[in-house]
């Protein structure tokens, strides 16, 4: 298949931090409406890969194409690109000085040019959908971690992105708060949102992913359907990694 037909196409992408090869010769394709899960140990390059996709990190070698546009050439409009791509972080990163509603409406108003009324209406609709409309005027520190993370997801959705990047979004949450966040992600997947997730939640990956990629030391060591990766991994390193996860009781 040519690069044109994929929504996201990475070819030979490498990224170094000083002496460290964080990503090495990574090829990855994601189609519209696909959910791709990146698994692997901490430091394997999952987060860096996601950050390269919205140019929070620059790559040293290789090309990345998103929606038919090469984003790794110098002339790309970074802000326009980021408006198309939502990212949610492990640490929520809500703006503590703004209310929930203001958190959600800031970017639509300033970057998409919506009026305050339009942005407020949209934000309230999104909050209604996740059952947090009564928190609209609260500050983030009045919310639980799960609620904060759902607000962060909705804040990204308010930009109406074509692609969502989720960077270990449940890793900082208490176990009993994980499910409320994951069920929101499941809804997005069911609605056809194109997503790339870095995650340690293997059973969730197994459930929602169309494709799972196992990263090890900056390389995509193995990729396939969840069935292929979780039930019949071919690579020794994948087996080892999943074995450790099973031991830890996470699958």
């Amino acid at each position, binding site marked *: 298949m040519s690069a044109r037909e994929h929504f996201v196409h990475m070819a030979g992408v490498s990224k170094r931090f000083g002496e460290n090869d964080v990503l090495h010769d990574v090829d990855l394709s994601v189609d519209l409406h696909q959910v791709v899960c990146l698994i692997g140990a901490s430091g394997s390059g999952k987060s860096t890969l996601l950050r390269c996709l919205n140019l929070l990190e620059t790559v040293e070698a290789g090309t990345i194409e998103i929606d038919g546009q090469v984003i790794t050439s110098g002339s790309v409009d970074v*802000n326009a690109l*980021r*408006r198309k791509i939502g990212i949610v972080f492990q640490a929520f990163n809500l*703006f503590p*000085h703004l209310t929930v509603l203001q958190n959600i409406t*800031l970017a639509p108003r*300033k*970057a998409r040019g919506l009026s305050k009324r339009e942005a407020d209406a949209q934000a309230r609709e999104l909050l209604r959908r996740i059952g947090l409309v009564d928190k609209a005027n609260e500050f983030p520190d009045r919310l639980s971690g799960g609620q904060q993370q759902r607000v962060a997801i909705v804040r990204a959705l308010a930009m109406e992105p074509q692609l969502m990047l989720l960077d270990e979004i449940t890793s900082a949450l208490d176990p009993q708060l994980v499910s409320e966040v994951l069920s929101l992600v499941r809804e997005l997947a069911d609605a056809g949102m194109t997503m790339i997730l870095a995650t340690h939640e293997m059973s969730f990956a197994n459930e929602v992913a169309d494709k799972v990629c196992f990263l090890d030391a900056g390389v995509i060591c193995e990729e396939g359907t969840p069935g292929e990766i979780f039930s019949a991994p071919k690579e020794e390193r994948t087996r080892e990694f999943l074995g450790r996860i099973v031991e830890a009781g996470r699958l």
Partner: protein
Amino acid sequence: MGRFLHAFFSPLGLRRAVPQVWDGFQTNIKLMLVAEVLVLVLALLIAIVRGLPGRASLPLRVLAVVYTDFFRGTPLILVAYVAALGLPSLGLAVVSDQSLFVYGVLSLTLVYTAYVTEVYRAGIESVHPSQRMAARSLGLTYAQTLRHVILPQAIRRVVPPLLNDFIGLQKDTAIITVVGVTEAIAQAGFYSNDFFSYAGYMVAAAFFVILTIPFARFTDNLIKQRERRERAQLA
């Protein structure tokens, strides 16, 4: 003891000195207000310049660093002499024919802007990089991120140290007396020459203290409030 009390605190001396020193003290207040507004605005601009990214802005950043280093290290009294006595002697248009009051404001602004720039900068740097990252990843530009995400958080954090510098500025308006601005200290001096009494200085001291105390209390309360709120958040 009697001589001391008479020289510094004779009731008649104090009473007679009040109107004269008050006359001068109004100049201190004016110096302070004008300089403070200029300092708050200019220091914010310079702090922003110091944080600009990219190679293109390097000369501006260097200029900002040189300015803050120089004026933080130079005594205010020296800056005041150079501004009020040096500049008029140059015979230049505009620069050389300002009033002493303007040169006083200029000196205070130059020196205090350098301090306050550092206060703002500390505030900007105390905002976690993930805030900037979150804002940029939403498609906000560098300037929008600064305006709506970084600065509101930074400035809130530095209000107490800013108020402290404000108190310092308030007191240092007295230094401007050396170049001949007739403010409170100058009036107190005239008074002591005319009446052989130091009561004028005591009155001036009282004015400064009375003006400073509310600020100091306000700052203390602000800090306390904040600590209480942060503790409540942890609980």
